[in-house]
C-alpha cells in the first residue's frame, strides 16, 4: 500500500505546495555553501595535485571515486580518511557537475553533465600518463559508469582496471520515480527528509527536472543491460549491494549481474551486504550507526583496495 500513499502524497503535494522551494543559506542548495573541491580541487583531484607524474607515480594505481545523485565529494570522505597515510594508491574524488553548488545549478544540469566530470578526470589522468586507473562509484554514478562502458567510450582508450559499484541504482526503491515525467511538472521539486547536518552536503530539494534526468539515465542503462554489456579487456567489475536499500532497489544488482559480462564471457562479481543503508560505505552524519555497519564499511574499503592493488 505504501506506493499508493506515495502517489497520493505526490498529488497532494503537487496541488498544495509552491513550486519554489524554501532554500536557506544553511543548505548546499543555497548557493553559498559550496563543495570544498570547488575551492581546493588539488586536494581532491589527482590530476590537479600531480599533473605531471614521474614514471613511478604514473604506475601507481589511482581510484576515481564518484558520488551519487544530489550528493557531494563528502560521500567518499570516509574512504579518504580510512586510507590516510597509505602511499600505495592515489584517490581522486570527483564532484559531479551540477552538484555541490546551488539548487539552480543542479536544476539545469543533465545526466550527461554529471557524467562529464568523471570523464574529465579520467581523461586528465590518462593524458598525464597514469596507467592504472580504477573507477569507484556510489548509487547513480554506477549507472553513469555502466553507460560509459555501454556507449563504447573505452573502446579506443586505455580501459579502467576495475569498476567497483557500491549500491548502484538501476531500479529505484521508490517506484513513484517511474511516474516523474507525468507528475514531475506538477510537482516542481521533492523535499528530502534528512538531518540539517546532511543539508550541507546533500541537496535538500530535488528539482523535478533532475529527477527526470535520473529516470532517463536509468531507463537507458536498463535497456543497455537488457541488450548486454561486455566489459573492455582487462577490466573487472564488482557490485557491492545492500540487501535492503530504501533508495536503490537491491534488484538493481540482479539486472547488472544478468546484463554485464567480462570480456571472456564470465559473470561479474556481486556481493550482497547485510545492510539496510543506501551507500552503506558512508556512515558519517547518519543516526544509529551499528557496529555491523562499521564492519561492513571497513570490509568493503579493504576489498576495494585489495582489488585495485592486484
Amino acid at each position, binding site marked *: 500500500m505504501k506506493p499508493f500513499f506515495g502517489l497520493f502524497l505526490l498529488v497532494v503535494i503537487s496541488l498544495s505546495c509552491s513550486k519554489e522551494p524554501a532554500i536557506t543559506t544553511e543548505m548546499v542548495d543555497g548557493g553559498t555553501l559550496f563543495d570544498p573541491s570547488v575551492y581546493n580541487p588539488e586536494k581532491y583531484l589527482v590530476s590537479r595535485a600531480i599533473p605531471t607524474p614521474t614514471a613511478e607515480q604514473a604506475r601507481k594505481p589511482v581510484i576515481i571515486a564518484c558520488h551519487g545523485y544530489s550528493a557531494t565529494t563528502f560521500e567518499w570522505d570516509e574512504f579518504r580518511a580510512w586510507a590516510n597515510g597509505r602511499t600505495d594508491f592515489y584517490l581522486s574524488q570527483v564532484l559531479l557537475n551540477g552538484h555541490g553548488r546551488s539548487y539552480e545549478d543542479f536544476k539545469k544540469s543533465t545526466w550527461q553533465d554529471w557524467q562529464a566530470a568523471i570523464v574529465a578526470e579520467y581523461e586528465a589522468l590518462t593524458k598525464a600518463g597514469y596507467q592504472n586507473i580504477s573507477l569507484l562509484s556510489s548509487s547513480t554514478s554506477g549507472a553513469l559508469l555502466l553507460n560509459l562502458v555501454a556507449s563504447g567510450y573505452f573502446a579506443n582508450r586505455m580501459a579502467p582496471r576495475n569498476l567497483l559499484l557500491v549500491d548502484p541504482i538501476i531500479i529505484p526503491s521508490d517506484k513513484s520515480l*517511474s511516474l516523474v515525467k507525468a507528475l514531475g511538472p506538477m510537482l516542481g521539486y521533492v523535499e528530502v527528509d534528512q538531518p540539517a547536518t546532511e543539508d550541507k552536503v546533500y541537496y535538500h530539494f530535488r528539482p523535478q527536472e533532475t529527477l527526470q534526468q535520473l529516470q532517463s539515465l536509468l531507463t537507458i542503462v536498463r535497456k543497455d543491460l537488457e*541488450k548486454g554489456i561486455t566489459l573492455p579487456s582487462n577490466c573487472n567489475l564488482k557490485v557491492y549491494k545492500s540487501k535492503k*536499500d530504501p*533508495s536503490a532497489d537491491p534488484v538493481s544488482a*540482479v539486472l547488472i549481474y*544478468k546484463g554485464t559480462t567480462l570480456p571472456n564471457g564470465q559473470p561479474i562479481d556481486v556481493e550482497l551486504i547485510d545492510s539496510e543503508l543506501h551507500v552503506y560505505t558512508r556512515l558519517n552524519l547518519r543516526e544509529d550507526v551499528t557496529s555491523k555497519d562499521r564492519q561492513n564499511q571497513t570490509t568493503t574499503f579493504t576489498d576495494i583496495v585489495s582489488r585495485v592493488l592486484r
Partner: protein
Amino acid sequence: MNRICFFVLVLIGVNIAFSFGQNHSTTNAILDVGIRFQKSISLYTENGITIQYTSQKLASQRLYFGASYVTSRLGTAIRSNAIKQDNFLINASWYFRPKWLIQPVVKANVGYFKADYGSDLFNELPRTSLLASPEFGLCYCPNFPLKINASVGYNLFTGNGITGPGTLYPVFVQTSITWNVLKKSAN
C-alpha cells in the same frame, strides 16, 4: 508460495468450470478468449493470455469473471537479459453501458507475482508477491465476437527496496483483444 499458486489455480479452475457450466445452461453466455498486452510504466512489456465469462444471469452481462496470465517471457525478456517474471491474475469486471459501442469498464484483479532472478546469488531477495490492482478503461465492443479493451491499472503492492520484488511497478497499461468463442451457439 506453492499454497498461493495452488489457491490461484483452484480459483481459476473453479471460475472456468463455472463459466462452462453457464454456457451449457444459458444461450446468452459470452466467453471471451484472447491475448493481453501489458506494459508497466518505465519498465517491462509483459504479454499473455486472457479469458472472461459472463451471461444474462450475471447482472445482464454487465459482470464478467476472468483470468489472465502475462509474463515478460513473452515481452521484454524475449532474447534479452531482462528478468523473467510471471503474473497470474483472476478478476471481476463491470461493464457500465452494455449496449454502447464503447463501454466504460472497471476491473478488480487479484493474483500472484513471481520473478526468476536466474542465480542462487539472489535467493535472499524478495521475488514473489500477492497482486491486487484496480483497472479503469474502455472496451470497444461491436455487435461482433471481437472485443478490444484498453485500461490503466495500479498495483497496490510493489517492491520498495525493503520488501516486495523490485521489478513489480505500480502503474501499467494494458490492451486485450478477445473473441467470444460462444458467439455461434449464442446466436
